[in-house]
């Protein structure tokens, strides 16, 4: 049994050396090439001083080098940190400094974004391509530098399954992203369950639609490599054009697709999807947000032979529950359950009196088992709040993860997602803390008060609207504030609409009345 992620690759490289492991933008890597290149990268990282547990950042658009970088970092004993190549410099800089990234694997183009950033922890930079006409910066290396390192073996590494493998940053309610630490064991718990459940085989052609900083990609990459199958990384710009994306799925003969529902909704609405075109497709997994029933029914009708699964779980547990869509029941269902616990995982719901909830009752979903994160990077307080001691058994010490999601179980033992305990929302599957958007708005010197609210939307889950009261009436414009947000938060978090007002409504305790703002907005929309 593999106990660290890189063993999945080494094992597959032994059995499937000449098969394609990964495809991106017209380039492929065989298992042998991926194994050798990642060995070389691991040796390179060691020579640059990377020790076990050091952080290595991955900051470049998806490419076959992404997979080399992930495995190379792991083989060196490092913890990799995928950074969204489209995020503003300010947020990337925060993350680099927050977890002390020592080695940065990037492209010249992305490196320019960080030109004016102070990142003292970064000791060296490796470009995913060659150096351009003599503009050599100190401690910057070209990809070709890897060629001089041993390819046939990885460096010595004494590792255990509880070592950290990667850190995924998600939106934080206090205005700063937080780093969810995931161990090899966390990832493997999910990967092993998927392998058994979905029977990924060498002949499978698995899509990778999610960005690498989004945990949906963990299934794509590691389950593909474990199976000796081939990973097909969706070019970013194709995701914008449903007709082109549908053509790509057909042409690449994708057999397994995993994405957020909104990507599938777009395919249903504009992709001319049908079973004839997607003859090879056998399995669709979706996660990250609620799939609107109307479109799920259409998808099921358009693709009658494809198995559909709803997967659920926060980054802190990866996927922890699943539901296999029952086509016979679908026409009469008004909502889709998130289902029941995956293997090697236990979930239960707890009400406000700390009691386990029964059928039809509502409580917060708790998760236990080896999939649960050890916590947040550099934030023991937040970790203690979310990863709590298991007070429901006293035989030994263990942690439970509180999801903050309100759920209700039905008589079959399937859970239904009802909403959040806090102000976290989902838009296009991205997890967004409204507090982070408010903090971005408040960082503008002209802003006195700011509140962000979610406007439910059938296609993308939620749109974001903000209400802002300026210090000086008439001094600010919505566009100016959107521009300001663009320097602090990712694009998907910039409010689509900003309403400027004199002052914001307050509750009796003097807090901004977000409920009233959201209601005012929905009444205006009616």
């Amino acid at each position: 049994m593999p106990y660290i992620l890189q063993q999945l690759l080494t094992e597959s490289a032994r059995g499937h050396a000449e098969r394609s492991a990964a495809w991106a933008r017209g380039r492929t890597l065989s298992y042998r090439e991926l194994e050798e290149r990642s060995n070389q990268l691991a040796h390179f990282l060691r020579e640059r001083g990377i020790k076990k547990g050091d952080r290595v950042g991955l900051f470049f658009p998806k490419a076959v080098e992404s997979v080399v970088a992930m495995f190379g970092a792991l083989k060196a004993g490092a913890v990799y940190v995928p950074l969204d190549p489209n995020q503003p410099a300010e947020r990337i800089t925060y993350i680099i400094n927050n977890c002390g990234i020592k080695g940065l694997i990037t492209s010249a183009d992305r490196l320019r974004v960080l030109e004016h950033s102070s990142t003292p922890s970064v000791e060296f930079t490796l470009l995913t391509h060659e150096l351009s006409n003599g503009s050599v910066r100190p401690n910057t290396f070209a990809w070709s530098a890897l060629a001089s390192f041993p390819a046939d073996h990885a460096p010595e590494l004494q590792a255990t399954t509880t070592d950290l493998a990667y850190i995924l940053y998600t939106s934080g309610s206090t205005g700063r992203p937080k780093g969810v630490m995931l161990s090899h064991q966390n990832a493997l718990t999910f990967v092993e369950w998927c392998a058994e459940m979905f029977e990924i085989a060498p002949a499978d052609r698995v899509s990778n639609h999610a960005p690498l900083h989004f945990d949906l990609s963990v299934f794509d990459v590691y389950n593909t490599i474990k199976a000796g199958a081939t990973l097909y990384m969706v070019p970013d710009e194709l995701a914008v054009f449903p007709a082109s994306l549908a053509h790509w799925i057909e042409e690449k003969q994708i057999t397994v697709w995993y994405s957020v529902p909104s990507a599938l909704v777009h395919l249903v609405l504009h992709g001319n999807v049908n079973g004839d075109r997607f003859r090879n497709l056998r399995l669709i997994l979706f996660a990250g947000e609620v799939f609107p029933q109307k479109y799920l029914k259409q998808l099921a009708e358009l693709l009658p032979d494809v198995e559909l699964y709803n997967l659920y779980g926060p980054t802190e547990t990866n996927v922890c529950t699943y539901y296999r869509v029952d086509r016979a029941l679908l026409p009469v269902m008004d909502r889709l359950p998130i289902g029941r616990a995956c293997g090697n995982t236990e979930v239960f719901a707890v009400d406000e009196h700390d009691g386990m909830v029964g059928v039809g009752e509502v409580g917060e979903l708790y998760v236990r088992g080896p999939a649960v994160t050890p916590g947040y990077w550099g934030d023991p307080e937040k970790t203690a709040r979310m990863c709590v001691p298991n007070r429901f058994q006293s035989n030994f010490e263990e942690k439970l993860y509180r999801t903050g999601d309100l759920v209700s179980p039905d008589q079959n033992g399937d859970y239904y997602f009802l909403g959040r305990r806090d102000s976290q929302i989902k838009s296009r599957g991205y997890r967004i803390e409204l507090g982070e958007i408010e903090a971005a708005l408040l960082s503008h010197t002209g802003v006195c008060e700011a509140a962000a609210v979610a406007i439910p939307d059938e296609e993308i889950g939620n749109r974001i609207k903000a209400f802002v009261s300026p210090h000086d009436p008439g001094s600010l414009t919505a566009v100016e504030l959107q521009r300001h947000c663009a320097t602090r938060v990712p694009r998907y978090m910039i409010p689509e609409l900003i309403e400027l007002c004199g002052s914001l409504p307050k509750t009796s305790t003097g807090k901004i009345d977000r409920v009233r703002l959201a209601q005012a907005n929905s009444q205006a929309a009616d």
Partner: protein
Amino acid sequence: MSTGLDLKAEIRKFVMENAQTKGVTEVSDDMSLTDSGIVDSLGIFRLVSFLEENVGVHIGDDEIILDNFRTIADIERFVNKKMNGKGEKASI
């Protein structure tokens, strides 16, 4: 029907409004609208509706492809072709 000059100006105006909400202040005719995030999976359909309503062309799902919408220049070329009765169909 818009003249060539009007058409590009109208497309540019609409793209600029979208760009500003994403924090982008300058857009050249040959700049990739998808790489810069100005046109995303939602924005593309706003753009299509805008063209249908303001330029009076009908745009089929199989025409909403990268080749027709990568840059402002591409959109103009595509719309001009449509107005002359010849659209570029999906072929990648």
